[in-house]
């Protein structure tokens, strides 16, 4: 956390925003209220609280927030269903009807929109320069060609998405560190910094509260 406190604000990627917001109340099979949370929610809330208590802001770019709202809310729920977390917490034995999935996802999205109301949270209209985007893509192609560096790209992962690269460039532009769970980003922190493609990229899980 110490290295983050030297900055006025920290950038969250779409996953971090979903972790922060994934805390909703649903009713179990007996009709009792249950708080559903993702495994990373407690940690995300601790990190956010520590930053806010130290008067640090949290920001992201519009495209990342949209990704969280439109894609990751669904993915996060489906992954919790597949892990059995939702079944356990709601004491469900059978399959969830799509109506229940939608009810949970809608609540999650509502919760996500609450973060926009927070004074410490800012969504930037930053739009990455296409030339710079292409330069980062070219750099990742170099990483893939290097036997040594390519080992740092997790298996099954392709190149970073445009949103991920835009977050990197937003980090460089705003001079704020980026917190992310994407290994293919934080594993190349030093190389990206050396090229001026980011201020710094930190793994969300490595932040000590």
């Amino acid at each position, binding site marked *: 956390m110490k290295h983050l406190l030297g900055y006025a604000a920290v950038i969250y990627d779409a996953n971090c925003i979903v972790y922060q917001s994934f805390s909703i109340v*649903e*009713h*179990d*099979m007996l*009709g009792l209220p249950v708080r559903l949370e993702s495994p990373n929610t407690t940690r995300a809330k601790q990190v956010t609280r520590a930053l806010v208590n130290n008067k640090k802001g949290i920001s992201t770019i519009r495209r990342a927030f*949209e990704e969280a*709202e*439109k*894609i990751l*809310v*669904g*993915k996060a*729920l*489906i992954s919790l269903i597949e892990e059995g977390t939702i079944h356990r917490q*709601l004491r*469900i*034995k*059978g*399959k*969830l*009807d*799509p*109506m*229940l*999935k*939608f*009810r949970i*996802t*809608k609540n999650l*999205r509502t919760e996500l929109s609450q973060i926009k109301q927070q004074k410490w949270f800012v969504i930037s209209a930053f739009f990455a320069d296409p030339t710079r985007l292409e330069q980062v893509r070219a750099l990742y192609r170099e990483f893939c060609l290097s036997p040594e560096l390519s080992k740092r790209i997790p298996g099954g992962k392709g190149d970073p998405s445009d949103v991920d690269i835009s977050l990197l460039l937003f980090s460089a532009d705003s001079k704020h560190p980026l917190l992310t769970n994407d290994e293919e980003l934080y594993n190349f922190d030093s190389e990206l910094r050396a090229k001026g493609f980011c201020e710094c990229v930190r793994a969300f899980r490595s932040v000590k509260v």
Partner: protein
Amino acid sequence: MILAQKSVFGRFDARVLNNTTPLYAAAKPFEVVESVDWQPGQSLFVYALTTLPKVRQAMQIFDWGVSVTGRVPERIWKNTEPIIIAYSTVCAAVNVQARSFNPQVRAAELCADRLREVMRITERFAPSYNQILLQGAASYCLRVLSRLDEKKDEPSKQLLARIRKFTNQVESICDQYEKRYEASFSLLNLQVLEDQFDMIQAESAKLRLLPLLRDIPTKELVRP
């Protein structure tokens, strides 16, 4: 009056003579054709973006015989009774259906069939808010339709019309995005559809057919 004919490209091309142009009908192939007046000697060519065995299967379901080559068997087209045709080129599945004309009851059944098709298609889409919205809304509407079938009062008819309109729009989106732009489906803004679904919920709750989704007990939202 609606006539149906096969277009050059084999597409089911509904020509609505009274109130719209052929171009409009072709551009909106997912509207339900309400009825077709069959004339002796007139052929109906049914086209679906699916395999012939599946079309045959659909025809068998409705006792249309198995000699499907695009032409409806003679004994059908000699029948001058109006027939409801629901057609959808949404995907490779049974999507050609024919029923005898009975608007109120049949419309609900047809709508339910189309919603099941929507659920089947969206199940294959990558998880996203939009995918879960369409699946959830279709499931809710199906449950409403199953309770609506026997109701003949005016508010029920209005609710059915609303669900059908919603289904038309959802089908149209599924078709556009299923084959070409599935990756961008999740980024679509479907707020208009979500608002319509909210209205369907409000009307269903008012008619005591089904509570608002937020008020349905979880135990009723679980499948065995």
